[in-house]
């Protein structure tokens, strides 16, 4: 028995695939699948034919072959006898180094500039606006090249430090040399017993944390405000210095010294790394400054006024009330700025800093002629770095989020 409420049992017609919303999306997806397969066939067929014509094949064997070129900054041991694969690893580490350094300094510059852009001081405000606009509106490549040129042309050559009347001198008790080839810093030498010093140092850092937690607990439980800043500083330095003195300076410094045509010893920070690092941080800092400013403006004025009514000073209002709330607005765009720094660090190739692009996408590609393999691998590396940065930063962002009921 049929009633009016029963739907019509429609027989399936071909036109329903197009005109019936129940099936239409399936049809479209099927057509899309066919289109994707057709594209794959087109691209793949071209690739196979072009490779056959050029007498090439796809093979990653070159990664095991001897690289035969030098890399000027080696976080892990590497020489020209090593493989292309190891050269790519060195490049990857160099990329991570400059990206990491850049993220830290860009954040500092950005937060300072962003806060100062809202300063009551007219002159400071204007200078910071000038900084932000100048750096945001000029390509980062031009900044990298300008700063690199300044490094090369304005810093003294190593031989300027030579002779009885040197035209250049080292800084900080002859420990730091700034030359046009790079900056030379003292390097710690780990002697016998240095493990103990490091142990003391780590213990004192843990001590600082425990002390601060104790002070906080005292404040919350008993309302006693214990000063934390100077005790922390003391805890940071004194145990290590004591350990050094008692154990007879197991950790000593090796100073850079002029030997031959260049400085030897110590840590070398390449001019290209400094140019890239500085340019990336100051360029991205301008963007972060804008994010910080927007974040601070997003905190309602009532918060500042309430904090002022409680008797907090402007500095503490910023630190304790405004910035923690602004952070929630600032962090998401900050993540994408970190990603930008990582991606822009590939411009290292313009100043000869041997990062991933310089090794795998540069010399390895040119030497082996393995263009497809190198570029694909290069993209894969960057993709992994980007995805992991956004993954970890998103976790951090979720912990910082306002806990809503």
């Amino acid at each position, binding site marked *: 028995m049929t009633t009016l409420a029963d739907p019509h049992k429609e027989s399936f017609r*071909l036109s329903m695939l197009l005109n019936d919303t129940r099936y239409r999306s399936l049809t479209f997806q099927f057509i899309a699948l066919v289109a994707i397969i057709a594209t794959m066939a087109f691209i793949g067929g071209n690739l196979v034919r072009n490779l056959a014509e050029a007498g090439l094949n796809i093979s990653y064997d070159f990664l095991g072959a001897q690289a035969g070129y030098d890399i000027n900054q080696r976080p892990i041991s590497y020489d020209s006898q090593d493989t292309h694969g190891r050269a790519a690893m060195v490049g990857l580490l160099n990329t991570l180094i400059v990206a990491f350094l850049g993220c830290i300094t860009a954040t500092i510059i950005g937060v300072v500039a962003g806060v100062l852009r809202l300063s*009551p001081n007219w*002159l400071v405000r204007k200078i910071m606006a000038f900084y932000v606009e100048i750096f945001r*509106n*000029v390509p980062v490549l031009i900044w990298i090249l300008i700063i690199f040129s300044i490094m090369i042309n304005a810093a003294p050559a190593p031989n300027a430090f030579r002779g009885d009347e040197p035209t250049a001198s080292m800084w900080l008790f002859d420990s730091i040399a700034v030359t046009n080839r790079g900056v030379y810093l003292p390097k710690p030498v780990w002697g016998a017993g240095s493990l103990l010093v490091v142990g003391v140092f780590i213990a004192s850092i843990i001590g600082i944390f425990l002390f601060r937690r104790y002070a906080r607990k005292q404040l919350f439980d008993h309302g006693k405000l214990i000063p934390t800043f100077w005790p922390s500083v003391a805890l940071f330095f004194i145990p290590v210095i004591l350990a050094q003195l008692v154990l007879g300076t197991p950790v000593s410094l090796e100073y850079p010294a002029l030997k031959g045509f260049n400085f030897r010893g110590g840590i070398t920070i390449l001019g290209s790394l400094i140019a890239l690092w500085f340019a990336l941080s100051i360029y991205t800092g301008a963007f972060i400054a804008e994010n910080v400013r927007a974040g601070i403006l997003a905190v309602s004025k009532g918060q500042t006024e309430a904090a002022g009514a409680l008797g907090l000073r402007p500095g503490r209002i910023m630190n304790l009330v405004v910035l923690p709330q602004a952070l929630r607005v600032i962090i998401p765009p900050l993540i994408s700025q970190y990603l930008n720094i990582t*991606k822009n660090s590939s411009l290292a190739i*313009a100043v000869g800093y041997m990062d991933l692009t310089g090794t795998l996408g540069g010399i390895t590609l040119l030497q082996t002629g393995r263009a497809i393999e190198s*570029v694909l691998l*290069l993209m894969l590396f960057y993709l992994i770095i*980007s995805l992991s940065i956004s993954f970890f930063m998103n976790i951090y962002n979720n912990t910082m989020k306002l806990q809503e009921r």
Partner: protein
Amino acid sequence: MSDTHAQTVAFVRETEIPQSPPPALEAGAVKWVRENLFSGIFNTVLTLLALYVVVRFAIFVFPWFYNGVWEASSRKECLDILREAGKGTGACFAVLVDRWDHLVFGFKYPQDGYWRILLAFLLLIVAAGPALFSSLPRRMLLFTAFYPFLAFWLVWGGSLWLPLTILGLIIATMLVFRLISSQIPVNIRQIVSGVIGVICGAGLAYLLFIGAQELVFIANSVGTEGMIAPIAYGVFWIMAIFAFVFCVPMGIFVGYAIYNSYEDGGLVSIVASLLFGYLAFVYLLSPIWMALNSIIPIELQAVASRDMGGFMLNMLLGTICVSLSIPLGILLALGRQSPMPLIKGVCVVFIEFIRGVPLITLLFVANVMLAYFLPPESNFDLILRVIIMITLFSSAYIAEVIRGGLAALPKGQYEAADSLGLDYGQATRLIILPQALKISIPGIVNVAVGLFKDTTLVSIISMFDLVGMIRGPIQNSTEWTSVYWEVYGFGAMLFFVVCYSISQYSQWLERQLNTSHH
């Protein structure tokens, strides 16, 4: 009470005393300075520090700028002139005068053709006007639509008839669409639909059959040796079987669908006009423009793409890629919002992949890899490959901006469109996109500015844009080696002027479009 008061008070003022001026420290410029510069110890220190920085900067830059030498043939001559004049520092702006053409137009563009670039640039401003400022007459948009063809002719040269014929064929294609969708009676349309359905169905089946063969060919050349190869071999075989099995059913289905749409004319008119456009471009384009050109030759000296250079190249890449990537970005954003998992998945993978890699790797793809993926007989030149890759790059970013705009629309807008009975296309075109795009304009402008700055990256794959020009021919020349402040400063200034004005425009537009009443 009041009595005693009246007796004790000897004097009551009956007139109001005139207002006294505020204390000198609390008025005018002094007050402003006190409040804005010296309101506390910290602020005073900050002000003095800032003043020190500004003064040092001025002392450093002004003599350098003021003493600048504008006429010299080499850096050495510049330094000689400065030394003779007894000036310590001075810029050598002569490099800009000497290499002006190179910096702006590149070193291969024919000199007597510079007016073409300038004219194209001026017309760009006219063409962009109505798109940027809604107060300008709407009729000017006609010129905007015509501009790409004119600019192509001006920049690349050749015969004017080529772009005009292309334009004519596009208009003809649109007329075919109009004609089939509305003008002709249904019974004729049924016949047309049948014919087009058969052609398209057969063509599609044939294409898929070839595709299946191609996939088998790929699978066999991949082989089964190694670790990844067997998987790829299997995948390609599965796809080949899929394509083979479905080539005839797909052909029949699509042919039927086209035939079946004769009543409302939607699908058939799209397919027919695309078919017409394709055939017209393949078989009609070159005969027509060559014939027209032989009757009335209007020609400019043709310039090859590889001869473009200097700031002009940056402008070219910037304008072309931004304008191409906005429609592509809209499609990607809509695809990412789509409820269909396959289409959504493809868009997500594409967008996240592009956003995860640096532009320079995509330029490497354009430089060394893309040629392998295209048919052996096709020869896209480098600039075209770079345009393709930069467009893909920026479309992913624009798609994310527009997705933000789409997500910001209240759900009620979608539901209202549905309740009015609009289909997906109408709702998107009439309700969703106008509002979503309005929200996304500042973001799109940001992407555009970023993209324009990123066009300097092409210098790394040895194209001679502004930066490539400076790093290559200028700094490597014997006369101008180690001149860097002047040239980079000039480059920075050009970019600053363009990018700053765009961002100011965006802020102005944001205020204009803020039609909500808070």
